[in-house]
């Protein structure tokens, strides 16, 4: 494994977004993974519509909450074509699903995987290198007050409650950490990112890991 790796360095990660007071983190993390998976395959890097996932994935609850598993299952089973964010912009509240004609361009996924990598975070790092940014669900209660540094205490692997996207890792220092993109705007944390210690399942980061294939 390289000591440090970040998909942002390959210019395949979109900018940090802000879910505002919409409980749609599950949609932001899944759409972020699809955006990066496409760019890794050589497609242009562009924001895809989170609002489309919020409004249309019927097996979730929009801004009232949802699950990455249900969102990925819906995208895969329905072969949904994710349109550009500019065509179906985010409005931080639930709305009626907009339907597009079959000929309308969009991105659909081929498949996805989901594993528990607890106690196997090196394998998880290999998955990150192999498949691209990973969708994870963490216990983010203590992230309310986070300003920076490496999260390694006060973050149980209790009940997972927040979906985010791992874009890289850094093992060059005394404490190795995951580089985690959040959806609370770029003024939160480290330019919108959190650093979470690798190797101890901090915040439950390794328990629920998904990768997307396009």
């Amino acid at each position: 494994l390289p000591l440090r790796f970040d998909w942002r360095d390959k210019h395949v990660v979109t900018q940090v977004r802000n879910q505002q007071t919409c409980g749609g983190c599950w949609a932001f993390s899944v759409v972020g993974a699809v955006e990066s998976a496409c760019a890794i395959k050589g497609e242009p890097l562009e924001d895809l519509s989170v609002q489309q996932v919020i409004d249309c994935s019927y097996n979730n609850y929009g801004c009232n909450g949802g699950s990455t598993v249900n969102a990925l299952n819906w995208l895969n089973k329905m072969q949904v074509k994710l349109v550009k964010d500019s065509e179906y912009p985010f409005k931080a509240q639930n709305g009626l699903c907009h339907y597009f004609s079959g000929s309308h361009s969009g991105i659909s996924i081929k498949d996805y995987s989901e594993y528990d990598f607890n106690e196997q975070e090196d394998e998880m790092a290999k998955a990150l290198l192999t498949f691209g940014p990973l969708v994870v669900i963490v216990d983010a209660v203590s992230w309310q007050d986070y300003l920076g540094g490496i999260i390694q205490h006060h973050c149980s692997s209790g009940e997972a409650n927040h979906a985010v996207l791992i874009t890289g890792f850094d093992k060059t220092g005394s404490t190795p950490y995951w580089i985690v993109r959040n959806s609370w705007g770029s003024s939160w944390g480290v330019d919108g990112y959190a650093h979470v210690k690798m190797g101890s399942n901090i915040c439950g980061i390794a328990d629920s890991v998904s990768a997307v294939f396009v």
Partner: protein
Amino acid sequence: TWPRSREREAAAFRESLNRHRYLNSLFPSENSTAFYGINQFSYLFPEEFKAIYLRSKPSKFPRYPAELQMPIPNVS
């Protein structure tokens, strides 16, 4: 679902300040460890913060099969 009043926000902010002091006091010698402080969420009580921002449902995933040792790709 909470009435947003100035008193309530002030009480939440005070509670946040106390929480920051506590969280920052525990591992002062660890230079790279996380640090906590005032941000856009400091006017919310933890239960309000959780109710608005932590809405992802947990899921139980199959354990990654250790024998499936993944080769390290050349990502250059």
